[in-house]
């Protein structure tokens, strides 16, 4: 009787131990899969962000083309962007975004860009004057033609492109 009871107890312990073991292995496998999913989601989001920013900065409405020498990626023509601001109503649903903002990284400039303050201004808000909600950003090259004593030259600078996605 005692021997049979011991055998049953032994089997029960073995089953419990096996269940715990496989549960642990299952949990680890699940955790790994979930962390991979999260990483994949983050990578996809980053990729989506870069595609959207690239789409904007390389669209003909903004892109420098070959106006400033070599073809540059992520180069925005400041003059074009300023002209586009005056026609913002035509583009309000064109890119499927709320607003586009270009911020110059020159700390001596503070003004919002308007036809009166251009080009000595810092923030150019294109589709609307409001920036609310979530935005994504990247660095761009912002170029325009300037002149010194009547001699024209290319003035390019690093700037930030912000896209308001909400």
């Amino acid at each position, binding site marked *: 009787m*005692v*021997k049979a009871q*011991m*055998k049953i*107890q*032994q089997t029960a*312990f*073995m089953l419990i*131990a*096996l269940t*715990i*073991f496989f549960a*642990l*292995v299952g949990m*680890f*496998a699940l955790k*790994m899969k979930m*962390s991979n999913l999260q990483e994949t989601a983050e990578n996809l989001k*980053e990729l989506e962000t*870069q595609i959207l920013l690239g789409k904007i900065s390389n669209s003909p409405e903004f892109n420098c083309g070959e106006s400033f020498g070599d073809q*540059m*990626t*992520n*180069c925005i023509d400041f003059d074009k962007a300023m002209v586009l601001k005056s026609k913002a109503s035509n583009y309000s649903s064109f890119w499927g975004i709320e607003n586009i903002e270009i911020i110059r*990284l*020159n*700390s001596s400039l503070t003004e919002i860009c308007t036809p009166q303050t251009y080009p000595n201004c810092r923030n150019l808000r294109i589709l609307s004057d409001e920036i609310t909600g979530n935005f994504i950003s*990247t*660095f*761009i*090259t912002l*170029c325009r033609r*300037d*002149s*010194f*004593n009547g*001699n*024209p*030259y*290319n*003035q*390019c*600078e*690093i*700037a*930030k492109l912000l896209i308001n996605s909400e």
Partner: protein
Amino acid sequence: MKSKAQHEMMGFALIIIMVAIIGVVFLSMSKPDKENNQPSPLAENFLESVLHHTTNCSKYSSGPPYLQIKDLSKICAQEGFCNSPVTACESLNHILDDILNNSFKAGVEFPLKAYQFLILSEGEAIINKSIGNKTSNSMGSSEKLANDLDFYLTLYY
């Protein structure tokens, strides 16, 4: 008899524990660590834009055309001048300080913990700017110009 069964159970439990430990170790080792210095599109776009940034250093004695950072770096590597007596390296240092301070906020209270910006000429650092305490989680990018001038930006999160 009872003692034999107890020994059997102890042995079995020991095997289960050992297999579990081996499994955990194997799983943790098989999960690839986040690679250091993964490519960063942000750093790539930053470097691309920095190279084309127009400085106030004239190509000639004064007035336009003005040098871009990639040209000024070349002159700095040759120990040349921006607008004499200001050396190209002094001017480059000042411009890059301004750009980096306005571009990145690094520190323990920010998502970006530190960054390092490097310009190497033939393997030797002509500009080395490092802000914050570096971590093991880094992303970065590099731009190699034809004249043995390399630009590096590493962002530490």
